[in-house]
């Protein structure tokens, strides 16, 4: 595949040949398919094939176009607006009219209804699993935070039964999510939020059938009983190993304006090996696409500006950056260091210690050492938390991050904090992909500043339990971990790299960071949603400035998206999806038998 992948789609793609088995291979996570939990790539990319949302994205050959980042109707007949009876002048009440003919693959097939979406929202707020995107919903939708808090108080997280969970859901409502009838859903917001349409395109905002009430969210039982309203259904799922999707006979193309569903089957195999091994497998024809590992097509042009210019650690952080989001490809925060300030080492509650860590890490060296392990294009040093081509753009005031490491200054700060003799921290990481290399690299940097790091490798399940799902506060056995984050949506996305990570109790705030000033700034930024872009950006920049000043996390690496991706010779019709980390839309692809001989 070449750069032609981002050229306008050839006419032939409008009626591509159907059939074949699309094969993905790589080290990406493949643990939980429950839509209530899935909010980002890569798992969300397959969830949307069997679980539809009110709105979603239409595949576009060129991901730089505005159409690629603007949600379009999915199960909803239209994106609510003032002119289609869907959005009042207050911009706090959205009315979704559901598309007729969308069916669950039940026996007999049953229509997807507005109450199914209400159930989906309730499940998302369950106390057992922790959707990383939940904060967007609880901060925007009227009554959703109250529902979540009440749910958590009423049903214990550990040992909760499906019956307990369903009983709470049946007895309680989210005040701002209700069905007028089977075909009409109302979602009320606490404040005007034009971004909410993008939030509703996340896979965790899927409808949920009544059958799900019989299972604990995210459980093996649920995964054995997944229902589909999309073009594919789960035929076989071995968590962490294998997923096989087959066509869903209850799905009809006429009821789905977005998903083309060209191939007959999709098979995902999780395998060991880094990007080079995955690339070799694709090039050898043993796989069609990478699973998770970002791999750019070998002949693709190098990314502009941000991907190369920032490899110099000496460049001023406040230098001009690439153009605004929506006109260029959104970069990702490929790695940042999260502190467990809730129940980790006492020392981490001292901002001087966190700043010492930030001073000690050599981001440029990290980028070089991990280049071959984190996929393509190569990551580059991050100078702030919000990557290029996302909102907010840089404030122009700098971020206070040093361009190069300063172990001496770090030691001095540690001494000020009472750790002149050093301290010891525990860092956890998932034992796959490039994570071990990243962990070893930053641990070595910290050692040079007098911070001993005990590295603990965890499998996916253990990592999820320790870092992502266990509520901060209880002993979780870690002090540091490197995380990554891509943009959950592209247009007007000032919240995505800040709110879920740093607001108190937020769904991706794994370290339990809490600062009333940050919370107030986040609220102010959310309330600025109706203000002109400059004011909105300024409000989010203020959040970023505060969390960086407080060393709430340490940005490590940015990465440009792999566009076009490395693809097998028979793959056609690729459409990178910006909100999915620019992974190809699996429903848009088709397989060219002639390509097998190429």
């Amino acid at each position: 595949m070449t750069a032609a992948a981002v050229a306008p789609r050839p006419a032939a793609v409008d009626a591509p040949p159907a059939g074949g088995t699309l094969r993905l291979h790589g080290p990406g996570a493949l643990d939980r398919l429950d839509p209530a939990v899935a909010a980002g790539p890569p798992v969300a990319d397959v969830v949307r094939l069997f679980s539809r949302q009110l709105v979603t994205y239409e595949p576009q050959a060129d991901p730089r176009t505005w159409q690629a980042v603007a949600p379009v109707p999915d199960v909803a007949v239209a994106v609510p607006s003032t002119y289609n009876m869907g959005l009042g002048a207050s911009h706090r009440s959205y009315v979704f009219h559901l598309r007729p003919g969308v069916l669950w693959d039940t026996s007999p097939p049953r229509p997807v209804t507005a109450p199914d979406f209400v159930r989906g929202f309730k499940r998302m707020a369950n106390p057992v699993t922790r959707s990383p995107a939940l904060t967007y919903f609880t901060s925007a939708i009227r009554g959703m935070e109250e529902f979540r808090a009440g749910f958590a108080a009423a049903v214990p997280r550990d040992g909760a039964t499906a019956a307990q969970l369903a009983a709470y859901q049946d007895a309680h409502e989210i005040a701002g999510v209700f069905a007028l009838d089977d075909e009409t859903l109302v979602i009320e917001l606490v404040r005007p939020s034009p971004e909410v349409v993008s939030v509703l395109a996340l896979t965790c905002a899927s409808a949920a059938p009544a059958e799900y009430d019989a299972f604990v969210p995210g459980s093996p039982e649920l995964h054995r009983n997944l229902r589909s309203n999309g073009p594919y259904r789960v035929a076989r799922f071995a968590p962490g190993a294998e997923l096989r999707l087959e066509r869903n006979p209850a799905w009809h193309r006429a009821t789905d304006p977005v998903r083309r569903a060209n191939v007959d089957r999709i098979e995902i195999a999780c395998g060991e090996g880094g990007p080079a091994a995955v690339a070799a497998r694709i090039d050898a024809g043993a796989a069609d696409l990478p699973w998770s590992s970002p791999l750019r097509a070998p002949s693709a042009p190098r990314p502009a500006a941000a991907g190369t210019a920032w490899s110099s650690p000496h460049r001023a952080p406040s230098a001009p950056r690439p153009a605004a989001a929506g006109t260029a490809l959104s970069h990702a925060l490929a790695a940042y260091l999260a502190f467990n300030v809730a129940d980790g080492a006492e020392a981490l509650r001292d901002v001087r210690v966190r700043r010492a860590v930030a001073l000690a890490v050599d981001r440029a060296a990290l980028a070089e050492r991990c280049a071959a392990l984190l996929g393509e294009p190569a990551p580059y040093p991050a100078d702030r938390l919000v990557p290029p081509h996302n909102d907010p753009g840089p404030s122009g005031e700098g971020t206070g991050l040093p361009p190069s490491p300063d172990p001496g200054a770090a030691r001095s700060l540690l001494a000020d904090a009472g750790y002149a003799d050093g301290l010891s921290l525990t860092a956890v990481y998932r034992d796959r992909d490039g994570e071990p290399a990243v962990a070893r690299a930053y641990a070595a940097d910290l050692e040079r500043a007098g911070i001993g790091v005990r590295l603990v490798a965890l499998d996916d399940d253990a990592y999820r339990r320790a870092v992502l799902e266990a509520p901060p506060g209880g002993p979780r056995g870690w002090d540091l971990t490197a995380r990554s984050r891509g943009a959950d949506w592209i247009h007007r996305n000032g919240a995505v790299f800040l709110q879920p990570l740093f607001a108190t109790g937020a769904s991706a705030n794994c370290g339990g960071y809490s600062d009333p000033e940050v919370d107030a700034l986040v609220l102010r930024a959310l309330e600025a949603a109706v203000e002109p872009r400059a004011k909105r950006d300024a409000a989010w920049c203020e959040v970023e400035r505060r969390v960086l000043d407080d060393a709430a996390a340490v940005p490590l690496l940015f990465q440009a998206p792999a566009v076009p991706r490395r693809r097998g010779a028979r793959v056609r019709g690729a459409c990178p999806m910006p909100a999915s980390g620019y992974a190809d839309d699996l429903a848009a692809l088709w397989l060219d038998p002639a390509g097998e001989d190429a």
Partner: protein
Amino acid sequence: MTQTLTRAQPPARPSPADGAPRSLRDASWETVKGLFALEPGAIHLNTGTVGAMPHAVVDEHDRVTREWTGGLMDVYQPTQFPEYRALIARAYGVDRDEIVITHNATEGIARVINGLDLHAGDEVIATSHECYSVLSNFNLLRNRHGISLKVLTPPSGYGVTAEEIVALFEQAITARTRVLAFSAITLWTGTMMPVRALCELAQRHGLITVIDGALVPGLLHCSLRATGADFIACSGSKYQCGPLGTGILYVRNKVFPEHNPLPLPTVWPVISTWYPMVGDTPPRSTTSVESYDVGDYLQIAGSASIARGAALAKACEMWDEIGRDRIERRVFELGEHARERILERFGEEAMFSPGADARLRSPLVAFNPFRRREDAWNVKKAHELTMRLADEHKVWIRWTEFDVPGSPHQHYAARVAPHVFNDHEQIDRGIATLARLAEELS
């Protein structure tokens, strides 16, 4: 005549018009009904959205269109509409230089809002009960120039008073406030806003007033000048019953201290072929004598439909013939009749329109027609009711949507808006049909 708007001097009697005999002043309402091009058997209770044109207005539009089709006449001078603007101005107690014939109220409001001399940090106060055109254009200024837009939600319901509304605005004014924007009559709840009191409030604070007067022409017999407002953007196709695509814009162009002693606000004629290509306009007047015809600067903007201007003027001429004072009394009486019938059937608690304070009553009455309170936020029922009334019973009303203070829900109402082409029997029948259907949907 309402208490909130001030009566104009009776306009000079116009010359007889085609199809509008002198006897119209004394004609029965049954005769007046016969002047309108209405669908037989239909009950049109939706003049708040669009009125019905008189046959004479349709004919005038057709005649002028034919007259100007294929000719080699100079189209530019006539599209200044000097006679038509003068005729309309007389009807509303103002002068020609203060009147512009626009394409609709939205165009008028957009030209005013975008022509205001506002800058970053200036604050505008408006209400959530404004037409989209008001809120969208102020939002445009917010995004373009960095103004601050403060949107108030006015109270609604039978017991609302004018004092509550004025107090709401007064409490919102700050040192940064530059503009008060509100409707003369809100299209969602039919609230006759206390226009004069709000303009006096604005004047006490040195503020510009921008009024959406879409429902004013053809309904109220009033002096636009006496409101004390700076700008009033009106529709020509609602109560004035001109063709679709007609509007009237009032721009204060003189200083009458008894009405508004403030200096004239700067307005930039953003759509104009008359604004100087070099240099600028003369200074604005500080007296009751205009310094220049600001109406011309706004009016002259390339070619225009002469037929639409002529037809709107014809409608205004007919209103003058019938008597604007008489029309106002009749429409308000029909509105009161509708209000009483609605109160009988649905009760005060169903009302979103004011009632207790007579100053706030207009002929537009908005209410929840359904048995359950929560159906007031069910757009589907409101829509179905309106569609079925039209399709199955030929009763034309409108559903409206608005915020209610303290409620998180978007509210929806049925709104009836009678005009002189309605009568009591139609209103009774229309509301009875509506009540039956609403009960079925409840």
